[in-house]
């Protein structure tokens, strides 16, 4: 259950050129505020909208193709997701570029925060001659998928509804504890272990699982960082992830 007294903070993520700004503007209208992320000149845009008695705050993350630690934008996006604890990630997916966009989606999902996908630029996909079955996609990914055409303002209500349903759901978990058991009652979908998990192959998975277990058994680390995400990042050789663990060890 969403903690009634706390603010509903939704992080808006997505790749560049996915129409993220347009969706952001569509949802927040004029209620926006632009600042700077500390120490860097990347814009931090926050906005608000009201829907059915609730006020939702949207934080626009920098557009990134991935979540490595190689670029300042990626680091900022990750930082926010790890430390500011948004309760939902709104992932803007370019329908005409599905494969590449899913690459980011998977990494977002690993962060242990519930996902809502806006399948944007549906009109462009149509012009290119293909159509996406949003129900099928939702089923495969295990998250709500809302088709949108940001430039025409389509999907606004449905998106707000999906976000609301997600944080009001009985199975909503904000901690990095157990994921939803997947009875499917909340969103009319069947799922196994919550949202989709990438299978990293038979050579890698055992190693990842063992690290996952070690990390979730560790009292300090398990509280701070999602085990799955951290184990994948560490195996990737991600320098920032390495540093996060190190500084925790040093008691910072």
């Amino acid at each position, binding site marked *: 259950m969403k903690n009634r007294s706390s603010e509903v903070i939704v992080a808006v993520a997505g790749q560049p050129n996915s129409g993220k700004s347009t969706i952001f503007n569509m949802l927040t209208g004029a209620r926006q505020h632009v600042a700077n992320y500390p120490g860097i000149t990347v814009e931090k845009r926050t906005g608000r909208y009201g829907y059915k008695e609730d006020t939702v705050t949207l934080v626009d993350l920098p557009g990134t193709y991935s979540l*490595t630690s190689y670029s300042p934008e990626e680091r900022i996006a990750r930082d926010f997701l790890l430390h500011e604890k948004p309760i939902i990630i709104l992932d803007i997916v370019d329908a005409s570029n599905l494969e590449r966009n899913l690459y980011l989606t998977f990494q977002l999902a690993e962060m242990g925060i519930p996902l809502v996908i806006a399948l944007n630029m549906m009109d462009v996909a149509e012009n290119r001659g293909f159509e996406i079955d949003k129900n099928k996609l939702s089923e495969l990914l295990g998250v709500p998928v809302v088709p949108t055409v940001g430039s025409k303002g389509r999907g606004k209500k449905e998106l707000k509804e999906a976000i609301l349903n997600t944080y009001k759901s009985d199975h909503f978990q904000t901690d990095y504890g157990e994921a939803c058991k997947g009875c499917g009652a909340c969103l009319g979908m069947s799922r196994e272990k919550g949202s989709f998990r990438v299978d990293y192959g038979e050579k890698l998975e055992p190693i990842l699982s063992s690290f996952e277990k070690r990390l979730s058994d560790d009292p300090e680390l398990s509280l701070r960082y999602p085990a799955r995400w951290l184990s994948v990042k560490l195996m990737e050789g991600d320098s920032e992830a390495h540093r996060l663990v190190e500084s925790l060890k040093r008691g910072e």
Partner: protein
Amino acid sequence: MTLNDIKLGCECRIVEVNLGGATGQRLMDMGFTPGTKVKIVRNAPLVDPVNLLLRGYHVSIRHNEAKGVEVEQL
């Protein structure tokens, strides 16, 4: 054989990305993985960079980077 060796307008398939560090990661992030089909669309008016088509979208990289992508002709 690398991306640089493929003629304009032709397609090829990626064998391996032989670049490390940020560049290699970036290319992988953008979809340059073994088995992916890539089409050389065109060169810039001054030769560099080169416009490629893969996974249904267009991306431009420098010839220096293309040199590090091993491919097989289709």
